[in-house]
């Protein structure tokens, strides 16, 4: 896990989450901006997966539970597509709020992953 990349990812997810929640409460239906924000969150998660798979080969290993780390990562990867699918099926303002909730949940999960990788003692 790369610390700076991880914090950028948390910041992007929080920003995307707040953006979608605010736009949703303002009555906007899912649009390119909000769907794009979730797509960006997803791309960064896939990047994180790549980093996590490669990092141990370079001596960058998790201090905590690897199983727990991957359960968080895989769950997080599933969230944006699920919320995005919902947004495509149901084009209402509340779907935009749900996109935001999913992004905020991803932010919390990435934060937990950071703790497991760098601070948790197995």
């Amino acid at each position, binding site marked *: 896990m790369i610390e700076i990349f991880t914090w950028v990812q948390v910041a992007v997810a929080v920003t995307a989450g707040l953006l979608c929640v605010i736009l949703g409460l303002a009555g906007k239906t899912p649009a390119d901006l909000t769907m794009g924000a979730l797509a960006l969150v997803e791309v960064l998660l896939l990047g994180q997966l790549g980093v996590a798979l490669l990092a141990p080969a370079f001596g960058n290993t998790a201090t905590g*539970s690897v*199983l*727990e780390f991957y*359960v*968080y990562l895989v*769950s997080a990867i*599933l*969230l944006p597509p*699920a*919320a995005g699918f*919902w947004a495509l*099926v*149901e084009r*209402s303002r*509340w*779907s935009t*709020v*749900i996109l935001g*909730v*999913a992004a905020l*949940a991803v932010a*919390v*999960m990435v934060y937990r992953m950071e703790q497991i990788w760098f601070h948790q003692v197995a």
Partner: protein
Amino acid sequence: MSTPPSPRTLGVGRVLIAVYAILALAATARSLVQIIEHFETAPVAYILSALAGLVYILATIALVKRGPTWYRIAWITITFELVGVLVVGTLSVIDPQLFPADSVWSYFGRGYVFIPLVLPILGMIWLRRRRSEILEGHAPLAARS
């Protein structure tokens, strides 16, 4: 997705259901990790966590479904969650040895930003408010099937 949306999933309720689904996923997945990795350290707490996760899954389904039976199941599961978070939360504060800090309900769901404490209350308010709609919404469907 070809079925018409049930009345209970309209509006803000969709957000509630989405949050329930995320919590169900998080609690179940986490308890499975705990049971696989260090079950023997706190078997009771981890089994309770797994049970909580399964009840969150059931509550999510019950909130999506329509009709009086699912309405009752929604009430039962949500009440179970509220009682669980209050009892386990209180016990964990009184006697920290009893529950490890990382179970779903310890310290009133602190590890989950207190969502487990707030969510059942919101769920109850919402079930109560939409009661007539939910039960009415069932009638035409029952007649058809």
